[in-house]
């Protein structure tokens, strides 16, 4: 007791800021996963003008694929990730072809309901195939942490890997969208599909590629997510899916930097709320912030202003 009183104040502050910093970095790590998932929602929304609520369940499938590759077949981590990407990409394109493409001319509500249907279908299929009992995912980088400042602060390696992966994906994707012919075709489709067709752009193929990229990213997100929260079960994708969708709206749906900013903010707010306010209330706080942001800026933080021509 006497010692505590004698302890100089600055050390306490530094100690406190170290803890804060750890929470912040963990939050950025979580946010990075949300950002990667949010990209899938955002790109598909931007180009196909639909909310693909089955996106979260593609993550779940990716997690199972990676789990079996790692634990059953003892494949190296890289091979497991590549396999998950291949399976999810194929699945994403297949879902689009079979479930959404026939509804291209239908109302957006029909497409939305179909997406929810696909989501339940995937969850139930997973439950039938692999049972509902959780499987333990072994992290692709182990459970080690980087210790800094004489042990005052530790950052899990998976957090570092997640953050780096997210940044690399953002850079590559931004370059891809901005200056490749497929990226330009995507932006053209997002603006005016009929005019795009008349310029010789195959809109269906462009939408397929968008789903392929979004689903491939979902596979990467699944491995990172399960390396942090190591259990794999059929409804695993629901909550991250909803959160990432929120992040996409938060940042401005349809915008790639928006998904990035939205994802990071969501992860940080969630983690800091858990640490300093209440674990139970953290989700409520996240959504409360979302509502406030949307009240002030209805198109999201980096959302496009809708110009109405008179």
């Amino acid at each position, binding site marked *: 007791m006497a010692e505590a009183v004698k302890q100089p104040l600055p050390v306490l502050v530094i100690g406190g800021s170290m803890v804060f910093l750890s929470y912040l970095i963990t939050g950025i790590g979580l946010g990075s996963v949300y950002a990667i998932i949010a990209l899938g929602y955002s790109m598909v929304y931007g180009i196909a003008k639909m909310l693909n609520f089955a996106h979260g369940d593609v993550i779940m499938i990716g997690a199972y694929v990676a789990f079996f590759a790692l634990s059953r077949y003892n494949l190296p981590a890289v091979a497991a990730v590549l396999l998950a990407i291949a399976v999810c990409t194929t699945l994403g394109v297949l879902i689009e072809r079979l479930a959404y493409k026939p509804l291209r001319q239908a109302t957006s509500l029909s497409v939305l309901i179909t997406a929810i249907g696909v989501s339940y279908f995937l969850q139930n299929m997973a439950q039938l195939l692999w049972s509902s009992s959780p499987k333990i995912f072994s992290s692709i980088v182990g459970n080690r942490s980087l210790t800094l400042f004489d042990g005052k602060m530790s950052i899990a390696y998976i957090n570092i890997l997640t953050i780096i992966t997210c940044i690399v994906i953002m850079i*590559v994707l931004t*370059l*891809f969208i901005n*200056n*490749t*012919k*497929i*990226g*330009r*075709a995507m*932006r*053209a489709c997002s*603006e*005016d599909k*009929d*005019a*795009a*067709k*008349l*310029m*010789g*752009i*195959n*809109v269906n193929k462009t939408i397929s*590629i968008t789903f392929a990229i979004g689903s491939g990213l979902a596979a990467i997100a699944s491995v990172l997510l399960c390396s942090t929260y190591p259990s794999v079960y059929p409804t695993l994708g629901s909550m991250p899916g909803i959160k990432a969708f929120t992040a996409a709206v938060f940042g401005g749906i349809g915008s790639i930097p928006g998904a990035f900013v939205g994802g990071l903010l969501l992860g940080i707010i969630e983690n800091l709320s858990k640490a300093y306010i209440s674990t139970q209330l953290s989700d409520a706080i996240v959504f409360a912030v979302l509502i406030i942001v949307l009240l002030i800026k209805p198109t999201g933080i980096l959302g*496009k202003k809708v*110009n109405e021509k008179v």
Partner: protein
Amino acid sequence: MNETPVLQVKDLGIDFGGLTAVNKFNITVRKHQIVGLIGPNGAGKTTVFNMLTKVYDPSRGTIELNGQQINKLSTVEVNKAGIARTFQNIRLFDNLSVIDNVLIGMHNSIKYNTFEGIIRNRRFREQEKEAYQKAIDLLSIFKLQDLMDHPASSLPYGAQRRLEICRALATNPSLLLLDEPAAGMNPSETAELMNTIKDIRDHFDIAILLIEHDMKFVMGICEEITVLNYGTTLAFGAPEEIQNNPEVIKAYLGGA
């Protein structure tokens, strides 16, 4: 004289429900020709363009492009076969830059695949560089090169019309369809556009079919004119013949 025409349309017709919008429409556009399609409002001119580009499926008749039947093709395939168009109400990709609008027109002439685009290999870099240069060349014909990084929507009206033509030309067509290219332009802009259209016809060696209400423009630029009224061909011939055709005058001014 026996050369295959660029466009040969025979007995083209379309019904919307019970309404026959276009019926027995015929037109021939030869190589290097500028042909006008005129008619009163609601005559079906844009509907004809929409059928030629397969936005609408014709109910009857045949469309031949350079001797090849294109009735069964999709909109994208029609563009690849060689028809490009502009729109009556400008439809640029508004939020994209001027040069991106043109590069989108070049989509099918750029050959690298998605994966090469992700890893940005040499083939990607070479082809992008080449396309970029071509786009700049095209833009400079229309005096748009200084505006190439601006969003298309920020351009003045006349420049947007020119950009639409530029984007259509980027798809490398053998037939260019212009839907009221001079609409909303002032007389000096219209005069300049007439010269530009003649220039691009010579420069790219293409045939042009255009819809226009400005009679000075049509009479000054078209070598042949087809008049459409109530969805059918009312008359066709050289500008002088059309100007003096009593039926055409009646259709435009109303029967006395």
